[in-house]
């Protein structure tokens, strides 16, 4: 009898410990509405965990494991001005970036996520910083008439590869490409091999990434066309929905970087056009519904 009660007590303690964990996280989720205690916490910790997906030139990881590329370099510059010195990369596939952020695996996602209405409801974007067009990569001379996702949808012999979870996937879906001709691609080299092997006929991704891959595979002939009928896409740094205060602080520093020339220098170093983002705002890119 006494044994039984001891066991029940132990169970109760274990359950209690578990729930106290759960409660604590719930409290920390609601606590940060006022003026960025999150930034204070990051400063104290000394580094920010940045969600990354390895896709040059947006994000470049070198042989030593150092993080570079347009997105992280810009984010690093902003956070350094905010008093957070170090940057710890959390690498994942592109599609896992937002789920990882929401699961608290990272504090922010390095620029590379295009600011689109659907995403604006899931994460808090900074003002746009890196802009690019969508492109189609294909074997030279193959399907010379393909220009838009609608063309892809109309030609039943064409399978299109898209970054899993990327804007391209949604756009192609919206244009009517059926699921069996829409293949998720985990990373650039895989996409190129799939293209070469004929698993896909077209590989759609941002123009700068496409250009990088075409250069890397310079021995083989690939042609690159910009997708017709889609606007210039602008990406921003993404924060958790409860971290709008941190995001606002980030925006203020980003604005000063844009005016003092640091922003232009970083973007030019990685081949991005600093002029493009200046024409856009988060409010406009997020569309009808109010962004977070």
């Amino acid at each position, binding site marked *: 009898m006494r044994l039984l009660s001891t066991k029940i007590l132990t169970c109760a303690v274990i359950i209690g410990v578990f729930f106290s964990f759960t409660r604590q996280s719930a409290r920390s989720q609601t606590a940060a509405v006022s003026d960025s205690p999150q930034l204070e916490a990051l400063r104290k910790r000394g580094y920010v965990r940045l969600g990354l997906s390895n896709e040059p030139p947006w994000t470049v990881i070198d042989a030593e494991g150092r993080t570079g590329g347009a997105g992280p370099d810009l984010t690093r510059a902003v956070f350094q001005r905010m008093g957070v010195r170090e940057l710890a990369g959390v690498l994942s596939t592109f*599609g896992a970036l937002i*789920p990882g952020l*929401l699961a608290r695996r990272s504090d922010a996602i390095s620029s590379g996520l295009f600011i689109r209405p659907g*995403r604006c409801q*899931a994460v808090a974007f900074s003002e746009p910083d890196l802009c690019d067009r969508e492109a189609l990569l294909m074997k030279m001379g193959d399907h010379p008439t393909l220009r838009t996702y609608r063309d892809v949808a109309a030609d039943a012999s064409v399978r299109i590869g898209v970054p899993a979870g990327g804007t391209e996937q949604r756009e192609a879906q919206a244009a009517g490409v059926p699921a069996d001709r829409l*293949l*998720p691609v985990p990373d650039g080299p895989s996409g190129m091999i799939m293209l070469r092997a*004929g698993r896909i006929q077209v590989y759609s991704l941002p123009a700068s990434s496409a250009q990088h891959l075409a250069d890397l595979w310079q021995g083989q002939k690939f042609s690159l066309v910009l997708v017709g009928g889609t606007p210039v896409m602008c990406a921003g740094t993404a924060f958790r929905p409860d971290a709008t205060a941190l995001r606002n602080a980030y925006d203020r520093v980003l604005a000063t970087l844009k005016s003092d020339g640091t922003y232009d220098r970083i973007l030019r170093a990685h081949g991005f056009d600093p002029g493009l983002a200046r024409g856009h705002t988060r409010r406009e890119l997020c569309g009808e519904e109010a962004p977070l």
Partner: protein
Amino acid sequence: MTWDNHFIILILPRLMKGLQITLIATLCSFALAASLGLVIAILEKTTRGIVHFCVSGIAHFIRGTPLLVQLFFLYYLLPYANITLPALACGIAGLGIHYATYLSNVYRSGIEAIPALQWEACTSCNLTRFQTWRYIILPQAIRPVIPVIGNYFIALIKETPLLSSISVMDMMGEASIFGDMHYRYLEPITMVGVLFLVIGLLARGAMILVTTSLSAFRLRYGKPDNGPKISEYSIEMDSFRDTVL
């Protein structure tokens, strides 16, 4: 982020679609594993010298390296040799070959448990090699290892999610695409886990039925089960025996 039942309803139809692929992949790769495994076991038994060394060396290599990387190899590198299989076929081939090397061990234990007397009897009855294997050795070798083969079948089911990494749209593939598009993995992955639990339990039940009906068969036809008893240990022991690579 908290649990949201709304997503369950959204994702269930897609998971059911993925379930079909999972089942196809499981059954096809198991069929491949079961037959190829037997071939490897017979080859290992009947060859000598350099051929034997190659066969068991390759089997060890496949058994000793991760299926994930093998799948990458089949999917991304086989096209360089002008062999471009569809994703599902790559997955089935990878899974089937990987498990064939496990099953060859199981078959071999069954074969080696057969007393030398049986082989000698075959020789004295003037049976051809084919007849010996087909009518005498294999029927006796396979029956006692069927429960162990069943265990490997259940293990194989649970390896299928790896196929999603080469863009096969099995349950895991559907779940992760759904997660990518709706920014949450909590419900999709949990549901996949629950479904695997159910499938695993069903498969286990089916295995128990098969084994009991096998022993019932023996009882009914009055054949005392005096064949070799083969435990999991003796098979595992065997897999270590020839590792003098």
